């Protein structure tokens, strides 16, 4: 065991934990005043729900002993045999517990990302049920496929350093499914849904950026050159994507916006995530630069296609994650990470195909499962608040609170 590696992973876990409240602010600032608490609550309460789910069965399903490449067993139920000594498979220089809790933070953040799609209209009880089912039936299997020892996507040789498929594509396409099933907000098309507090949103974006260092660099599970490299490309991609989104919007709409810069930064972080441990700085500039532009394009597409993904989860996480996963198949280099593989531009076109398969598999699985889960919940208890509640806002109607009382 190594104290430096352990310190790095534990602090990284703390940073990733902070991303969920960071996301709460990022999203919370973008909704209308009357829904700020409801939106923040979606993220915040996942810290409660998913932690419990993860400790009880989620971690075991994701990383426990493999069953046919599909799912982990329940042998580690309740963290049984997850102890203070290193696990052979997951971070050989850090306590197994440290790996488990680091991964716990990922499991929390991922469903929190989805909540942007159905902000301002979902019933809270339905949301709670959705969270548990989605974590169990979508996140855990996917996580096992990609990162669990024996998981079929990982075994296939797909590269996903910190969660392009597991975290971003999965949440992005689930967001699309949710937006389609749950339907548009009242007044869609006529009402202007103007962000009620952009400084809050930018603060959230900053916390996400900060926490993402733990997310990506921490995924090295050790504190070495690779961790430093992942840290660097994460920062670069975010920076360049902030610029790229800003300039795109400037060209298209005539003004550089702060929400655009913040959104671009997040888009860049998403895009670099899968490749963060495999690509170098110059590749990161390209990945981030195109990432910002692609996600901006995705946001525009939304209004064309007409689904109401309130806070653009599909465009930023779905599209950004897809771009990142494919870009890993283009820019990955064994000079950065000898344990990885080369991508197309480094002479290995096969990797792009592997990445492509992993993307499609993730998309299909997450999309179909999310639809099934939501249809089921709709049947049992309904999904949307009443029209009256939607007009009055989630805060008063679901939580009997108001965000601000001046």
């Amino acid at each position, binding site marked *: 065991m190594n104290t430096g590696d352990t310190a790095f992973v534990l602090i990284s876990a703390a940073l990733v934990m902070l991303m969920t409240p960071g996301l709460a602010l990022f999203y919370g600032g973008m909704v209308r005043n009357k829904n700020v608490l409801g939106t923040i609550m979606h993220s915040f309460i996942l810290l409660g729900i998913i932690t419990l789910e993860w400790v009880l069965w989620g971690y075991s399903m994701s990383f426990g002993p493999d069953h046919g490449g599909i799912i982990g067993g329940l042998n580690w139920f309740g963290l049984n045999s997850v102890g203070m000594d290193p696990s052979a498979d997951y971070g050989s220089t850090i306590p197994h517990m440290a790996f488990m809790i680091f991964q716990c933070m990922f499991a929390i953040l991922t469903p929190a990302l989805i909540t942007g799609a159905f902000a301002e209209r979902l019933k809270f009880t339905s949301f709670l049920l959705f969270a548990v089912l989605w974590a169990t039936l979508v996140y855990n299997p996917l996580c096992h496929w990609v990162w669990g020892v024996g998981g079929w996507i990982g075994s296939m040789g797909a590269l996903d350093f910190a969660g392009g498929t597991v975290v971003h594509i999965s949440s992005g396409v689930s967001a699309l499914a949710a937006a389609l099933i749950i339907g548009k907000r009242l*007044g869609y098309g*006529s009402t202007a849904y103007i962000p009620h507090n952009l400084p809050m949103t930018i603060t959230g974006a900053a916390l996400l950026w900060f926490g993402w260092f733990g997310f990506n660099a921490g995924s090295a599970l050790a504190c070495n050159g690779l961790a430093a490299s992942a840290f660097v490309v994460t920062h670069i991609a975010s920076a360049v994507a902030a610029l790229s989104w800003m300039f795109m919007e400037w060209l298209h709409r005539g003004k550089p916006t702060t929400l655009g810069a913040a959104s671009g930064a997040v888009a860049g972080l998403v895009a670099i995530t899968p490749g963060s441990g495999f690509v170098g700085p110059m590749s990161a500039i390209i990945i981030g630069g195109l990432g910002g532009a692609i996600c901006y394009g995705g946001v525009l597409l939304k209004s064309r296609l007409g689904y109401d993904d309130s806070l653009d989860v599909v465009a930023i996480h779905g599209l950004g994650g897809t771009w990142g996963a494919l870009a890993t198949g283009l820019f990955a280099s064994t000079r950065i990470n000898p344990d990885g593989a080369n991508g197309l531009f480094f002479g290995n076109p096969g990797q792009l195909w592997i990445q492509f398969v992993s993307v499609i598999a993730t998309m299909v699985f997450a999309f179909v499962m999310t639809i099934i889960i939501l249809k089921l919940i709709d049947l049992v208890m309904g999904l949307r608040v009443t029209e009256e509640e939607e*007009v*009055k806002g989630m805060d*008063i109607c679901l939580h*009997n*609170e*108001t965000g601000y009382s001046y």
Partner: protein
Amino acid sequence: MKKIEAIIKPFKLDDVKDGLSSLGVKGLTITEVKGFGRQRGHKEVYRGAEYQVDFISKIKVEIVLESELVADAVKVIQEKAHTGEIGDGKVFILSVEEVIRIRTGETGKDAI
């Protein structure tokens, strides 16, 4: 000249504004207010303690216009702000003695 003061539900503002615009109303002023009336307020709960909040957010729309237009304007407001549920609000009509446009110094009808 008259002044119409209409207390309406906030989410009806756009409809009311558009309706009045179509009617030819050139200007109006709105204020965020809170109302207390037949419509009951809501409960809020903070750390297990329950508070009754009686005041409900409303928008006050003020329009000064020529007397002849008042009837039409009121009709438009009534239509556009109507939901049929308690709390739809009120329209008050007051008399205005004079209007002056600051920019030009015009008065009366010309100033509206």
